[in-house]
């Protein structure tokens, strides 16, 4: 099993417990780190789910995201059916599929130094996981900031178990600032300074919002601000990823 096959197999068994998965994980540090991250996110989500139901706003956001994804999948599916039924597909069908796949970031124009296949071993591969990971992170943070009792419990946990601190940090979602800046500098050097400035600003925003929640754990607006700060950072990565996929 190689990295790509492992990545595909995680859709069925995400904890990497199957024999062939374990064999690959023993020899691949990057995949091991990825599986560890996914397991941590999954376990954190279970903990949060057990605490209390998230707010209607969180469910609403999830519903909107799912509907958008469903619409895009339907578009791809309808194009695939049209393609299958035709003996010789028209150029229009190929064209529409290409546009859909390009918008999904699944294909790129050919580059001499890069493979078209997504690979976990490539340095920018984390970006493939950034959007779903960021979504999971935001949901987790949304639940976190909604429930002050849980927030207080987490604050205690963070003090006693430093490893838990990563749960509330963007690093757990693979949102690495250095990777982002390096990729932006390679793809669009002129934008690097702007992204660096905005990264600095949004990190300050997150730190201030965290501090405000700690100081005012019963202030719902403070918790909302923390969620919004994370949303801003997720948006920054989203914009950067769009820019690097012409």
């Amino acid at each position: 099993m190689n990295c790509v096959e492992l990545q595909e197999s995680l859709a069925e068994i995400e904890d990497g417990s199957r024999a062939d998965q374990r064999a690959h994980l023993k020899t691949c540090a990057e995949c091991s780190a990825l599986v560890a991250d996914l397991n941590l996110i999954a376990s954190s989500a279970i903990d949060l789910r057990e605490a209390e139901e998230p707010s209607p706003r969180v469910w609403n956001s999830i519903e909107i995201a799912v509907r958008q994804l469903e619409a895009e999948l339907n578009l791809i599916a309808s194009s695939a059916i049209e393609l299958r039924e035709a003996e010789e597909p028209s150029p229009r069908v190929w064209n529409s599929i290409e546009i859909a796949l390009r918008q999904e970031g699944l294909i790129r124009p050919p580059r001499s130094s890069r493979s078209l296949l997504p690979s976990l071993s490539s340095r920018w591969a984390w970006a493939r996981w950034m959007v779903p990971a960021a979504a999971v992170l935001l949901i987790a943070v949304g639940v976190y900031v909604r429930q002050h009792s849980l927030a207080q419990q987490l604050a205690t946990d963070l003090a006693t178990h430093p490893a838990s601190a990563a749960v509330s940090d963007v690093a757990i979602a693979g949102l690495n600032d250095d990777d982002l800046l390096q990729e932006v500098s390679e793809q669009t050097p002129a934008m690097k300074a702007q992204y660096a400035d905005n990264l600095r600003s949004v990190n300050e925003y997150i730190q201030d919002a965290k501090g405000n929640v700690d100081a005012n754990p019963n202030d719902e607006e403070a918790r909302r601000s923390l969620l919004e700060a994370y949303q801003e950072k997720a948006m920054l990565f989203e914009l950067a990823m769009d820019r690097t996929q012409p």
Partner: protein
Amino acid sequence: MSGRTIKLVVVGAMVGAMSAGTLLAETHKEFHFNVGTKAGVSVNNPYGSISVKPSAGNTVTINAVLYSDKVEVDSSQTGNRVEIQSHLLPGATAESGRVDYEVLVPADASLTLHSNTGSLHAEKLHGDVTLEGAASTVDIRDITSAHVHVKTLNGPVTLTNVQDGHVEVDSLSGEVTLIRVTGPLVQVISTSGGINYTGDFGDSGEYRLTSHSGNIEATVPDSTSADVTASSVRGEVHDDIPLQPKTHTSFIVRQGSAFVGTMGRAAVSSTVVLRSFSGKIHLRKRTAK
């Protein structure tokens, strides 16, 4: 003919030739699509502007100006959905990959526009509008009864005369200006950009303007009815309008950094929340002109 005159003629001829070459490099393309009601139209243009206006009938018309042969326009229609993509070819740059679009869509069409650097403009529509741009200038006006979602990195965002809308604007550092924007939900989140609101906050909506370090300024007329909460962690808060104070608040109101109160008729009012960390907040009365 003097030597200086000859030089001027030669330089003029060269400039003329270069201009002609530039003009020749431009390619105009036009696409037409017949669609039904509530069609979906998506334009993804990495470099260049997109301007969208309403069409007369159920037709989507795309006028594209391509600035080199390093970029193509891919178009497709699947059912009631039209998708346009600027297809960058190897070696394309921000200049050579530029395409400017003028798009006409049925007024009830849902619109999704994406550009990194060009301006994004949409007007006189009542379908949902989603605009995303990094450094793009966003200008949206005369939109009614629709969802309006905007995301930018540092491009300025201006929304004018958006009525009965569900408006969400996220900007990292771009200035956000809302003029006569009302609806059930109007939400702006900015990290370092300023937020300016000019209008009356409608009559029953929720208005949330939040910035980390950008200033927030709301200018409202006397007739405004709203429950207003404003607070800044480290910035100053100013209020030029006398508010009826509220006795019950969810947080401690510190003079100079927060205020809570009702303006106008409390029975018919919107909820307005203005929050910042280090930016200033200013609620001011609009002066009659």
